[in-house]
């Protein structure tokens, strides 16, 4: 019961979704499964929030090192949750103005909008922005044109970086541009293609795309085999050790 039922559930749901793609009669089954999946995903966020609260409350109550930061996490969590669930500061919906809960929970001016606009967005985007420093620093230390492969990687990165900035115009702007009104010659196109911004386009549109497509095809095959292993019950790692 503890291990067989989950295997049957996973297989049934998975194959229903696959079948619903091919048999029109079962199309709605796949759509319903998708809605159920979204509901469970939303509940999983509740589980995640509950777990976050549990772990941090434990840390605060035991006064473990760094408990003050846990207290901040709890405070930020509870405040955001309260204002979001109670729709604090939202305006009523213009059509259903007599229903106080009908307003947009994330509409401009609401408390949750304020939290996103002035706390979550600046903080998360700054964290990502800081990666610019670390990527540049890591590249400076690690990039060495020691062999053909490393030279290709370094050269491509350099061209793409330059090609997406005004430096491309400064460095290779002297190369002839294609005239729009005339039939471009073979060599005209060649010279034009050597401009850094054009070279970047070619790298992104041909070489990079070829590599990305091969990687995507590989990923697709990997996902297909892993999914089949899960659905057929060959891969049971998601069931855990079975100790509980």
């Amino acid at each position, binding site marked *: 019961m503890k291990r067989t039922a*989950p295997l049957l*559930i996973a297989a049934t*749901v998975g194959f229903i979704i*696959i079948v619903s793609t091919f048999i029109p009669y079962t199309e709605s089954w796949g759509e319903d*499964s998708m809605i*159920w*999946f979204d*509901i469970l995903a*939303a*509940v*999983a*966020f509740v*589980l995640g*929030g509950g*777990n976050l609260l549990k772990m941090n409350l434990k840390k605060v109550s035991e006064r473990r090192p760094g408990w003050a*930061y846990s207290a901040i996490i709890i405070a*930020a*969590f509870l405040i*955001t949750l309260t204002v*979001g*669930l109670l729709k604090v500061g939202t305006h*009523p919906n*213009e059509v259903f*103005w*007599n*229903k*106080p809960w*009908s307003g947009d*929970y994330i509409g401009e*001016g609401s408390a949750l909008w*304020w939290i996103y606009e002035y*706390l979550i967005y*600046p*903080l998360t*985007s700054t964290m990502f*922005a800081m990666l610019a420093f670390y*990527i540049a620093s890591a*590249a400076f230390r690690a990039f060495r044109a020691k062999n*053909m*492969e*490393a030279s*290709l*990687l370094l050269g*491509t*990165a350099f061209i*793409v970086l330059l090609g997406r900035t005004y430096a491309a115009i400064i460095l290779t702007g002297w190369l002839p541009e294609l005239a729009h009104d005339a039939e471009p010659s073979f060599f005209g*196109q060649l010279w034009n293609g050597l401009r850094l911004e054009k070279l970047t386009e070619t*790298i992104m*549109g041909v*070489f990079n795309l*070829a*590599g990305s*497509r*091969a*990687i*995507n095809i*590989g990923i*697709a095959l990997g996902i297909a085999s892993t999914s089949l292993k*899960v659905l057929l019950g060959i891969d049971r790692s998601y069931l*855990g050790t079975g100790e509980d």
Partner: protein
Amino acid sequence: MNNRANAIWAIIFVVAAIFLGWRIATGNFGRVYVKSQQVTVNADDGSVAASWETHTKVPPRDHQEEGVSLSIPRTIGLWAGAILTLCIFSFLYGDNPFYKTAESIVVGASAAYLMVIGFWTQIIPNLIGNIVPDWTRTWATPGLDPEAKADYVYLLPLMLSIMLLWRLAPVGGWISRWPLAFFIGATAGFRLIGFMEADFVAQIRATIIPIWVKDAAGGVDIWASIGALTMIVGVISCLIYFFFSLEHKGVVGKTARLGIWFLMVTFGAGFGYTVMGRIALLSQRLEFLFYEWLWLDSPTADAVSGTASLIMPALGG
């Protein structure tokens, strides 16, 4: 960190503190102005049934226009955002309490934000709305289809949801395996179909068609066709590199090596793109600090009591 690095950081902090002090003493900055608009809803007999005010952010240069006023909550938000942005940037010096505080805020707020989104977009309309549509319509989702009837099949996802939350209980952890199995099975099904369609069949098709690219006049576009052929060679050689059932020797080995070169170009391009993306994000954050918070751009600075006239002489302008 050595003494030289400490000295550099100290100089940066002192210069920043002096600059901020100078801005506070001389200029107007860090304010958000909003324009108010009255929304009125009329009842069937024409009388005013309800009315409320909405506020839209306007540039500071419009602060003297009619209906424009200082927004205290948004101004507090601007300062909070700016100070927390600086707290995150302080990590460049090293891990410190300011960074950890900002990090804790983002962890707590983001978790709750996602929970709230899930609650209002999935749990209420799709779960509760399907089980008790009449009740849901009376308060949360009045726009719900008036013909919608209770669909008791949705008691199953409700049951699975409760079973999933059982994981928080000290005993009976295995109960959450059922909803987890649903999750895993559905993910496997969706991914299998989605990836085979979009990343396998569609990618192969897009690679092969067209091989010969025609130009506007109907002739063969030489460079575009060379590009298409290069793409086919690239994809095949990369796939041969990924294929380990054959030993990479002879022709296979040489093709695989070509595949490595294509992959190196892909990684280089990916690296360049990522760096550019991060730098764009960084410049966005600096714009927020310098323009939105400190009002260092003249169109904004001119707006309130001629701040630019204070800055320019200081810069020798």
